[in-house]
């Protein structure tokens, strides 16, 4: 089923299409949002919310961009909402869920720690390109930014990592804010 047909079926409230959508995109969305938020529960919640929004607004999808880009653009907006909401929720207890990495012990978590020092836009561009395999044009449509801006973001992210790699000692610290 191609993008437009899937969107049309979703707009018709087709449960099979919703299941297909979930199977196609949930894992990737969860991965992207988990690495962006570094919080497993919130990533799960955001991925669910993204897909629910996709189903609710599937009738608006016009095929000008790939469905995947459209869905990830919604995910990025959900992430933005999460960031703003998070400022108002200073939880008294910080319960860590399964999937959260408390101690950065793997290469992947080291990389995420380094990326955490970048802005969310730079981080999202890096993750979309290197992990999710988006092209620069696709990232531009996800982030609603010019292609040049996306290239610049990727360049900055790579430069930042390169500088860290050149340092003798890089202390892994939790980001003060995501």
């Amino acid at each position, binding site marked *: 089923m191609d993008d437009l047909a899937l969107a049309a079926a979703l707009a018709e409230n087709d449960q099979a299409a919703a299941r297909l959508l979930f199977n196609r995109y949930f894992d990737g969305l*969860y991965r992207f949002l988990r690495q962006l938020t570094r919080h497993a529960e919130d990533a799960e919640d955001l991925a669910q919310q993204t897909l629910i929004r996709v189903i609710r607004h599937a009738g608006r999808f016009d095929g000008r961009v790939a469905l995947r880009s459209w869905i990830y653009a919604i995910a990025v907006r959900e992430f933005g909402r999460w960031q703003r909401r998070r400022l108002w929720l200073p939880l008294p207890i910080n319960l860590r869920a399964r999937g959260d990495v408390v101690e950065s012990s793997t*290469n992947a978590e080291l990389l995420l720690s380094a990326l955490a020092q970048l802005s969310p836009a730079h981080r999202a561009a890096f993750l979309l390109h290197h992990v999710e395999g988006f092209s620069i044009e696709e990232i531009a449509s996800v982030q609603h930014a010019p292609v040049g801006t996306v290239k610049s973001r990727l360049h900055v992210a790579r430069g930042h990592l390169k500088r860290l790699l050149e340092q003798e000692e890089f202390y892994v610290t939790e980001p003060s804010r995501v």
Partner: protein
Amino acid sequence: MSLNHLEFDLAVQELRDEAPFPEQRQRGLERVLSRRRRSPKLPLAVGAAAVVVGLSLLPLVSRRGGGYAWAEVLRRTEGAENVHCVTYNAAGQPVGELWRSGVMRASWGRGEDGRIRFEDRCDKWTFYSFVYWDSLKGPNARQFAWLWDVTPQMLEGMKRFSRPRMVVEDFMNTRRTHLVRQERVEVDGRTLQRYVLLMYGKDLETVEADPGSGRILTIRSRFGETCRYEYPETVDASVFSYRSRISRDVIVFDRRGHPDPQHEPPFMPPVIQAKGGIQLRKASVSTDGTLYVYWTGHLPDKNEAKRLRILGTRTGRVKWLGYYKDGIHPVTGPHAKRLVCYRVELPEKVGDKITIRVPWGPRIVEFRDISLEKPQPFTE
């Protein structure tokens, strides 16, 4: 642990291999199919503990409105139709005031010298604006204000910028604002919720709000300015009157119902008197206290200008003698090109009538007892 031990490709591959746990997929699928988003389930014991801890900390932890649901805060805030905000400088002197009641809004601000410098009032339809000008000090000068029809563009701007910050959430609508911390404090025996916000990445602002209603009560900037908010039951209607509260003799130019100046025809007042080939069209005192006389027929040259006289009052320096130039739109057409403007300073209070002598060659064309147009006070 050092990052220089990091193998980039391996790290990226690890990121690519990440996947949700089966129970996460199952939960996600159920919620997506049912279109109901819920927070992920916590293990029962942890969830119960969180509820107990959360309930015990409820009075200490604020969510947006100091413990109230956000919808409740909004409802209460919307109910507060009247807002009065006074801004004080670091020395504790009031430097600005804002009133709002429904769609009506009024404000004034004081300059560094302590003088009130501006006032404005508006509702959905009319915008009143007054700015105090130091230069308007002559014996005939008058401070002035404007009344405009509110255009859709102005309304849009007012919606964006005129909303007083009644709840902390309003601060979050500004770019790059972050909550640094919040705490419950006692001020003068009253319990308040205090928020410290970092705005634009550099300015710290402290906001104190009523924990019950969520309404902002004070805002303090790092420069020492403090805004104090009140929410009165009623507001005196005179607060929103289109009259200056600073100076009684402020002239109000009522531009309501006038077309856009860009689309008005070139300025050409009607003829008052015609004599000797000269048509006198207008004599007026402007708000800056200078006399303007307009006529058509002849522009005196340099020598003739020495014999141009205004009788009935003392005159000072001539500021302009030439064809009238309109700064808004190009003056076109033969009449507009021939309109002569004579502008002269008036060092003393002028009466209601003057006599004008316009030289033309050896002749003098005299216009006697010409009524002076003066800015008229505004009547609502």
